[in-house]
C-alpha cells in the first residue's frame, strides 16, 4: 500500500515538473535567478549520492585501503571523464571493486 503511494506521488512529481511550462505556464515568467539555480541541481544531487556511496562504510568515513569502494570510484571517475561512456564507467568500476575484494579476502 505505502509502496503504491510512493510510486504514484513520485510519478505525479516527475510528470508535473516536465509538463510545467510545456502545458501550464508561460516560460517568459520564469525568473532568471531560479533558472540559474536549477542548473546546479544535477551536480549537487549526484555528488550527494556518490560521496556517501564511496566513502561511508557502515555509517563511518573510511578513506583507508581497507575500503575498496572509494578506490574503484576514483578509477571510475577517471574512466568517465576520459570516455564519457556509461557502460565503460560501470564495467571498469565493478571489475576494480571485484579485484580488490578478491585480493583482500
Amino acid at each position, binding site marked *: 500500500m505505502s*509502496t503504491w*503511494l*510512493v*510510486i504514484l*506521488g*513520485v*510519478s505525479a*512529481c*516527475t*510528470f508535473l*515538473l*516536465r*509538463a*510545467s*511550462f*510545456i*502545458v501550464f505556464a508561460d*516560460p517568459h515568467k*520564469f525568473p532568471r*535567478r531560479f*533558472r*540559474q*539555480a*536549477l*542548473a*546546479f*541541481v*544535477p*551536480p*549537487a*544531487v*549526484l*555528488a*550527494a*549520492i*556518490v*560521496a*556517501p*556511496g*564511496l566513502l*561511508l562504510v557502515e*555509517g563511518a*568515513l573510511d578513506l583507508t585501503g581497507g575500503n575498496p*569502494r572509494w578506490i*574503484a*570510484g576514483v578509477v*571510475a*571517475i577517471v574512466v*568517465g*571523464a576520459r570516455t564519457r*561512456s*556509461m557502460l565503460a*564507467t*560501470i*564495467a571498469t*568500476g*565493478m571489475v576494480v*571493486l*571485484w579485484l580488490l*575484494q578478491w585480493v583482500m579476502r
Partner: protein
Amino acid sequence: MPFGFVTGVAAISAGMSAFEGIALSVLSFSGIAQLIVSQLMAAGSPILLTIAAAFVVSLRFLMYSAAVAPHVAHLSLRWRLLLSYLMTDQIFASSVRRYEAAGDKRYLHFHFLGAGVTLFTTWQVAVALGVLAGAAVPASWSLDFAVVLSFIALLVPAVRARADLAAAIVAAAVALFAAGLPYRLSLVAASLAGIAAGMALELMKERRR
C-alpha cells in the same frame, strides 16, 4: 541500457515486487527518481520524505520544460502532454540542439516523438531485465555499487564549470557530515547546500564583472 538494468536490480533489492518496480519505471520514467526511491525505501524513509527527495532531484525538468515550451507552443494539448511525458535528459539535449539549428522545424515534434518512444522502449526493456535479474543476483556481487557507478557516469559530464564543481564538492561534504541524520535526510540537505554554493559562486562572478 546498463543504467536501466541497474535501476531494475535496485528496485528489487529495495524490496519492491517485480510488478511494483516496473510500474514505478513506466509511470515515473526517470532513472534518477527511480533510483532515489529505491535507496530511500531500502533505508525505511517515510513516504512524504521519499516523494520530496524525488521532487528535488527532478527539479531539473522545470528547466527542460521551460527551454522546450516555446518550440512546441503551437501543438495541440494532446501532443504537449505526450511530449512532456517522454521528456528525459537525453531527449532534451537532442531536441534542443535540433530546434536551435537552422532549417524547417514544422515537423520536428515527430522527431521528438520518435526519439522519445525509442528511448522509452529501450529503457523499459532494460529495467524489466534488471527486475528479473534482481532476484537471481547474489549479494556478494555487490551490484548495489553499480548504482553508485551509474551516478558517477552522470556526475562527471554534469561538472562543466567551476561553479558546478563547487556545488558538487559542497553537496558531497554535507552528505558525509549529515549522514547520521535519520531517513537519509542528508540527501535533501546536501542537495540544497550544493545548489546554494553553486549559486553563490555564480553571483560572485557576476559582481566581479
